């Protein structure tokens, strides 16, 4: 099953101008646990999708909010020449198809 079929929210945004953060939120504790325990959502998978080394991907399980947070370094600082998404709000799409 794809992540987009389980999650209620899959979003990206800057956390400061040099970090990109993704929040994946679930409607039930069962859905949260299923994804949190799945090998599909790993630093390797996410690094591969975004073209960054797995070591630069941080994943925070956040059970109290039924959510998983992922943090990456931005390749281009927000607003620098060559930036393509100043708020970082449209970088979530590659996550949608992750197989859980």
């Amino acid at each position, binding site marked *: 099953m794809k992540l987009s079929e389980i999650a209620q929210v899959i979003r990206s945004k800057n*956390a400061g101008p040099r970090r990109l953060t993704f929040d994946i939120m679930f409607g039930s504790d069962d859905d949260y646990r299923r994804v949190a325990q799945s090998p599909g959502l790993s630093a390797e998978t996410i690094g591969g999708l975004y073209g960054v080394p797995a070591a630069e991907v941080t994943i925070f399980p956040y059970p109290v*909010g039924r959510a998983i947070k992922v943090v990456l370094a931005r390749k281009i600082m927000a607003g620098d020449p060559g930036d*393509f998404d100043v708020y970082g709000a449209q970088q979530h799409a590659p996550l949608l198809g992750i197989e859980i």
Partner: protein
Amino acid sequence: MSASGRVLREIRANRRPLRLLGASGQLGYGVPTPAFNAGLARKPDMIGCDMGSIDIGPTYLGKGEMATSPESTRRDLRKVLHGARSLDIPLIIGSAGSAGAKAHLDATLEIIRDIARTDGLSFRMAVIPADTDREMLLTAVRDGRVSGLDDMPALTEQDVRDAANIVGQMGTGPFRAALEADVDVIIAGRACDTGIFAALPTALGFPTGLSVHMAKIVECASLCCVPGGRDSILAILDDDGFVLESMNPDRRATPVSVAAHSLYEQSDPYTVMEPDGALDLTNAHYAAVDDRRTRVSGAAWRDSTDPTIKLEGATKIGERAILLCGSADPRFIAQSKELLPKVGIVVRDLVCEDSPEDYTLRFRVYGVDGVRMNVPPNDTLPGEVFIMAECIAPTRERASEVVRTCKQFLLHYGYPGRLSTAGNIAFPFTPPEISVGPAYRFSVYHLLHVDDVDALFPIEVETL
């Protein structure tokens, strides 16, 4: 006695839970009136509004311009001023004018003074500028008291001199000092959004961890609810926790929605770094009061042994001009990756005949790779694309020359297999070239290590 003096005296004499109204997370983009009025009817002890963010990018900070329109900014300021004055409670606004530098603060104050004059309001107002003194910062750079945030390269003396504006994010202390100065209204330059709402409770001795956690949530108004939104939110804080309630009856603050808000725009959902300490949410607890209200407890506060002020600065890098056009030719689209840089070379050879190559020219092909950080190798090509060429050059004239030349040679560029020899691109309107204005980049995103995090933010009081 002014509003802050009255509220502090009243609650110190007769301690009770504190009621705080979060009116807006982005003052100037509209404050929905029904929820705001519902909040006033609940007799809050203060009204707070956040007005700025670093998210909007470096140009507003550098140029000294607000992101919001003057008309909507005035409408919002008028609404919250009248609300606060009608109840004689403090109104606290942080990060004035979108980016919180002197120009933004001055523009905000000008609107407030004009509203007071026009509407016959009189009040005492504390103003807290957030601009960083350059000489002080140069000394700090030399002394090694400045460090980069999130792998930002070390700050140089040249960076400090070149920046158009540098601001520091004040913490809760300056707001608290302003409240103690017996005022009705507090307008701060760049500030931590928590300072707006944590100042009053911490001045009254409510636990810092709970106060800062509450502040971190209500500064975004009803964004912590389902469905999230911009309506005002009420927090009722006591010594053991706080209850959140949206002032729009259709928005519910649930334990999961409130807990999930700690994720928003944060790189760590369990820790919020502040100038003088850290908010620790490891043991935060969220419990439903009913289906619309949640009670939050358990946040802890750790004082910092290394107090810091987060600095933000923007430097002008040139003038920006853009070209907007599209294509529906499958051969052009298939070759765009190779073809556009070649157009760039044609442009360079023309505009640099008697001038140095003093500009940058970038193409973004929307539909192909305009938005994504990393495009998968087997991505299918779309039926049409939107193309933006962006030039940053030393002058407006030079940037305009480059994009105008680019337009003509992109229109007529001959590429292998070309069938549409009358023109490669479609213009939605003409002229398709636009001078956007000065371009800036963030040159300062650093921590300044200081002994006294509040000393950098002096308070001025004026009577209107």
